[in-house]
């Protein structure tokens, strides 16, 4: 009899829902309990420093170019104290636009820009969502503690000549390459 089958299904549904009375809710009581955020969680964007404590960012604009919502703005400059070393004169991220896609982190050649597991960026005023360089810059190295761009790249800076990088041979004098 189909009537009995329907009735049984209806009552079974009631019973299944009623059993939930005795299970623990899955809710995380947020301000008191914090959810676990994995290390690769894409949250607040930071600018990191290399192990020497210098800024990693070389102001190549790749992050600004790849950003799908155009929330990154920066301007390049050269550091007069450490010769040839580029750095961003200002670096501005508008977090009210940012969609936390992580493309900037993927595009960055020097691991300077990184997304960290932090989502608590609420503000009362919208202008406070615009982070300047001093808000973004952290004192540590972030996810790549040993990486130092200028120590592996072939570019010349004040205290390192061409060929002076790790895993790099001295430059070849092209004028000596006679046939």
């Amino acid at each position, binding site marked *: 009899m189909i009537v009995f089958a329907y009735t049984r299904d*209806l009552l079974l*549904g009631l019973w*299944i*829902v009623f059993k*939930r*009375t005795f299970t623990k*809710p*899955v809710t995380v*009581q947020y301000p008191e309990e914090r959810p676990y955020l994995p290390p690769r969680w894409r949250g607040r964007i930071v600018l990191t420093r290399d192990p020497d404590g210098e800024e990693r960012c070389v102001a190549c604009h790749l992050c600004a170019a790849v950003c799908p919502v155009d929330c990154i703005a920066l301007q390049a400059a050269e550091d007069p104290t450490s010769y040839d070393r580029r750095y961003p004169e200002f670096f501005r991220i508008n977090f009210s636009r940012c969609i936390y896609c992580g493309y900037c982190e993927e595009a960055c050649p020097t691991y300077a820009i990184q997304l960290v597991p932090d989502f608590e960026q609420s503000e009362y005023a919208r202008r406070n969502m615009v982070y300047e360089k001093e808000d973004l810059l952290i004192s540590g190295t972030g996810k790549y503690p040993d990486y130092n761009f200028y120590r592996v790249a072939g570019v010349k800076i004040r205290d390192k000549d061409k060929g002076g990088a790790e895993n790099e041979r001295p430059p070849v004098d092209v004028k000596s390459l006679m046939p």
Partner: protein
Amino acid sequence: MIDWGRTCLITVTMLGGLLTLASLLIWVERRLLGIWQERCGPNRVGPGGILQPLADMIKMFTKEDWIPPFADKVVFVLTPAIVVVTTLMTFAVVPIAPGFIVADVNVGILFFLAMSSLAAYSVIVGGWASNSKFAFLGSLRATAQLISYEVFMGLSLMGTVALAGSFSLTDIVEAQRGLWFIVPQFLGFIIFFIAGLAETHRAPFDVPEAEAELVAGYHAEYSGMKFGMFFVGEYLSITLLSAMIVILFFGGWHGPVLPPVLWFLLKTSVFIALIILIRGTWPRLRFDQFLSFSWKVLIPLALINLVVTGGIVLARNG
């Protein structure tokens, strides 16, 4: 003679208790639904979130109370009051304990049926006065539902009346001293429960206010405390339905050990919880399905129930 002092005391107690209960039910329902969906529900305001209705009330009173320019203003304002007033008036004939009743009229069931039918007008008129298409569709559905469930709602109760031999709710409760009417009138109980769910516009028969299709149906245009009145009315009618089920089929205040009032409240709260559980479980019926189900299945069943009960009562007495 009417003892005016006692009647006034009971009236004030019932009014205060019912309005507190109706606002408390907002919290109870949200909390229970939360538990049954494996979340917490409101648990921030006050201990366990019990002051949530207070916060809601403050919010509703401070919100803009907007009357649409295209609405029929007088009817629009009047409608939310109808549902609350009629439901509260029905509670006048509800016997909570022996002697604890505002008006022990000898046609209690008829009064209940009349008042609950009047409450349905608030839905129809409210949707019509709003003069918007969603509200209108909601009231249209309410009308279609009304003409089907009102028929078997009355019919399903006649078996109980035949067994008790009286329309008075007190007499019906007294008649259940030995055996609750749920046993001889099981069919009547099922039919009345379905009709009651349709009457209170609760899931699975909440087509007049179906959130998924009609925004909020007949009260889509209402805001502020007028919207709140609709909600208070809904919770009052849930309480009324549970109380009526307890009185008519589950022996009212009868029960061992505990005092009668406690028994009545206990049974009523079980049914309130059941109605909330049903809302958390069953999907909404399409309203043409409900119409065909009520006309083709429930009304014949209610008639058969009435005829068989009447025959048995007649055979036993004669």
